[in-house]
């Protein structure tokens, strides 16, 4: 082309800015002790000092000390008994030139949202991984302190947007535990029906995206097709496809629509035979098996130490399902199996989710059979507003209705931790009340947030191409991770 085009000289310092380089020198990670030493000039610890911390990113090998390197290579894992990782196994002497730190995300289609992974690679092998999160942080726990208990479920339902009803359920259970109200049986069964349907739709969504991540675009279409049926039923029941705000403290917002049994039966009769089609499409398919068997393995000790729950924990062979171990709602009155894996790899996690769809349908069929009649919300005047019809007849009912929705109801002082089994693991709610109509503190223990800690360990030693599959098999929902 033209000779006038200046080509930057490699040694030219001005050209440095245009060269995309990844591993800029990061300050070494600061450990907690660093905050305790007073500032060099003797100034008191101010806000700036307290909050200017180390970098959140993965630092280059040369600026990371050996102990830190071992820690990052073995995930955050320093098991109490020290069985998982042999530190001498880790080559801390390796120089920077042999490895490369690359950045995956936050805008990467297979990170399921805005998850950013920093990967250290040796060729195509992943050495260290660090998830960097927070891109979707909107301060929902702070928002919850500004909302009344009645409004609270509109807030939490947006956290794990693939299983919104589970979020509403855990908040409602926590509020009801503080209130100490007696729940009518029908509300429990309605909640179980919706929550199990939601589990099916969430797992279908996972099957769809997981299929997409490893190249099965048919699975993606099938998963969305079946999920659509369930969302249509949710729309009929709650008025919305997602973010339902249907399960509320004190029961549900409304009763099930007429003819719900038929709708639910059709869903069950359709989805169940189609799980056999997925078996045919994926389970028996050699390409899928090669890409998932033995990938992202995890042992039971590692999963427990890292607080991983849900299908990830069960895939390692630990039969832990809160529906069985610590039953809530009426799970002790229905018959279902807890699906457990053996090897803790991607394939086990896939099989567990596929079979949990079948078990959920089994539960749903029992719920349809056993659904009792009665109230769908608690008849406690302090909690439940009067029905719409009464408002037209009675001034007091109108005032009461108005008070419940503007001021909210008061919850006795106290604190409680309630946990449920969401499609992703233990979904907990720690609720502190100071006796006012708003929660003093609401903390949601998001299973995805904790489960992401398993990523560095699961990816270690695997191929870069499998990193996408491993990330997918953790099933993180970033709305819940970042809250």
């Amino acid at each position, binding site marked *: 082309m033209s000779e006038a085009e200046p080509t930057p000289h490699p040694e030219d310092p001005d050209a440095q800015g245009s060269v995309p380089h990844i591993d800029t020198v990061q300050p070494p990670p600061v*450990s907690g002790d660093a905050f305790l030493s007073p500032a060099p000039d003797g100034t008191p610890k101010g806000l700036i000092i307290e909050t200017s*911390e*180390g970098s959140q990113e993965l630092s280059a090998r040369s600026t990371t000390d050996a102990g830190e390197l071992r820690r990052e290579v073995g995930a955050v894992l320093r098991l109490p008994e020290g069985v998982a990782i042999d530190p001498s196994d880790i080559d801390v002497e390796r120089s920077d030139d042999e490895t490369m730190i690359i950045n995956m995300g936050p805008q990467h289609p297979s990170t399921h949202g805005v998850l950013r992974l920093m990967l250290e690679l040796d060729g195509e092998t992943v050495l260290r991984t660090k998830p960097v*999160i927070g891109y979707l942080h909107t301060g929902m726990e702070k928002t919850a302190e500004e909302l009344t208990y009645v409004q609270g479920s509109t807030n939490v339902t947006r956290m794990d947007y693939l299983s919104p009803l589970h979020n509403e359920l855990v908040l409602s259970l926590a509020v009801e535990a503080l209130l100490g109200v007696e729940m009518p049986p029908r509300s429990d069964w309605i909640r179980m029906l919706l929550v199990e349907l939601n589990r099916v739709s969430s797992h279908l969504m996972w099957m769809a995206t997981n299929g997409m991540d490893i190249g099965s675009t048919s699975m993606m279409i099938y998963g969305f097709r079946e999920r659509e049926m369930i969302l249509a039923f949710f729309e009929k029941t709650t008025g919305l496809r997602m973010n339902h705000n249907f399960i509320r403290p004190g029961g549900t917002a409304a009763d099930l629509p007429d003819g719900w049994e038929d709708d639910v039966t059709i869903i069950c009769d359709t989805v169940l035979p189609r799980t056999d089609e997925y078996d045919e499409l994926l389970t028996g398919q050699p390409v899928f098996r090669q890409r998932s068997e033995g990938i992202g393995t995890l042992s039971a000790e590692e999963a427990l130490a890292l607080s991983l729950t849900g299908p990830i924990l069960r895939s390692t062979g630990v039969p832990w399902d809160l529906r069985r171990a610590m039953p809530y709602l009426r799970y002790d009155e229905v018959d279902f199996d807890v699906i457990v894996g053996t090897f803790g790899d991607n394939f086990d996690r896939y099989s567990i989710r596929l079979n949990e769809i079948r078990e959920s349908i089994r539960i749903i069929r029992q719920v349809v059979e056993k659904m009792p009649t009665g109230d769908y919300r608690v008849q406690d005047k302090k909690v439940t507003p009067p029905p719409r019809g009464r408002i037209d007849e009675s001034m007091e009912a109108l005032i009461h209705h108005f008070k419940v929705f503007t001021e909210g109801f008061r919850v006795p002082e106290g604190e409680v931790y309630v946990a449920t089994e969401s499609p992703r693991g233990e979904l907990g709610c720690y609720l502190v009340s100071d006796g006012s109509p708003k929660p003093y503190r609401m903390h949601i223990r998001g299973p995805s947030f904790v489960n992401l800690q398993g990523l560095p360990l699961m990816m270690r030693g695997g191929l870069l191409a499998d990193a996408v599959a491993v990330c997918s098999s953790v099933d993180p929902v970033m709305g819940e991770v970042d809250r």
Partner: protein
Amino acid sequence: MTAERGTDVADGEPEVSGAGGSSTRTAARPRQDVVFPARDQYVEVVRGYRDGGFEMCADLCAVDYLTHPGRRLPDGVVPARFELVVNLLSLSQARRVRIRVQVPESDAVASSLVELYPGVEAMEREAYDLFGIVFTGHPDMTRILLPEDWEGHPLRKDYGVGRVPVQFKGAPGPR
């Protein structure tokens, strides 16, 4: 101050009623034990529980009691501004225990549990990020949800939520 053990009677956890079957029952979960160790004994108490079969640390979070100092605590526990709440889970016994540690504002520091439960790594970073409680011994005490250069710790009660003024389109201006 000694570790106060005992069940949490005063804190509003209702009894589980004996009623089963399809009759009504209270919404309460099975009773959870709550322990109030002193801050310097906290790690030892947790270690005791871990050795006693609590395999998992299910949750760790903090609470800022700045505007609600009069909460009910057992005798001998001096309330402080912050409280660290650790939920331990025993899979073998299907039991939970909750550990509440008082952390004063002037010295918002606690020992990290990473050595005992590596899974608290992210949770302690979250508590640091949102409350400013520093965990000594934590290998990577950085912010996790907020940007690195964020100032302040938003879940503290004295951290304002902020307001964005609403502007109405076509509203009459000042005349």
